[in-house]
């Protein structure tokens, strides 16, 4: 289905947030996920189903001042 990830529309072959993070090849411990402007805790990723046109933000901590 098509969803928006970090501002870009993408076609994804997965149905939940946990699968999405895995599909993107990311370490779950290092990212933070927002689903439709709501922060979703890692333990709830597998239960958070994706729907068409959902907005997902995947963030991580980087160096900064």
């Amino acid at each position, binding site marked *: 289905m098509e969803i928006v990830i970090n501002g870009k529309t993408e076609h994804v072959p997965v149905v939940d947030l946990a699968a999405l993070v895995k599909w993107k090849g990311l370490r779950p411990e290092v990212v933070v996920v927002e689903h439709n402007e709501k922060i979703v*805790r890692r333990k709830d990723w597998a239960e958070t189903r994706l729907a068409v046109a959902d907005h997902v933000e995947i963030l991580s901590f980087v160096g900064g*001042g």
Partner: protein
Amino acid sequence: MHSDALVLSGRAFRSRLLTGTGKYPSREMIPRVIDASRSEIMTVALRRVDFSSGGDNILDAIPRHVTLLPNTSGARTAAEAVRLARIAREAGCGDFVKIEVVVDDVFLMPDNHETLRATEILAKDGFVVLPYVSPDPVVARQLEDAGAAAVMPLGSPIGSNRGLRTRELLRIIIENARLPVIVDAGIGKPSHAAEAMEMGAAAVLVNTAIASAADPVGMARAFALAVDAGRLAFRCGCGAERERAVASSPLTGFLRDM
């Protein structure tokens, strides 16, 4: 606890040197900088993952005893700053947040008005708020009333290394302050940090000057020494400036025909 601790929202810190994690040539320097500087608080930023590089995590490089101070850099409004702060807290970063709201891409001047609004919201939400602002003494007082844990006025633009160009306003803010004043941004040399401490600042935050030095670990130590020296000088009472000379040696008993 140490008798001259820096206290932020009831939490005591020995070090008055806060450090940043941006601009390092390599992340492995970060634990060595912490070791050399004895800094106990480090800023980090939050960004969208770059999928081509697999997701960075600066937190791996920061020793566990260090208190994380996520900043809201990237936020252009209070609402965006609040959102970033909540994301950082949800990620397990703790309750501290540096509010940084900037719309000026040239001088990176913070938006004091939006920063004040974000402070009000986040302080009520239980965050330990450290707002980064332009040195406006009126806004500094308003931030205190809004529940900030400290006020962080800039010395000069981020990364400019220009030192305490805003010193006259910093002086006023420090004199009026009921909370710690942490000079943040523009500190380019250890002597700038010492000057801020001599003036009565509670602490300084330094990123560029350490990270961009030829020897960041050595520079981190230099800054630690400067902050200690400046703080000690402040506590010991610097002499007043005068217009004219006042001799240091006696003016009588000279070995010559008078």
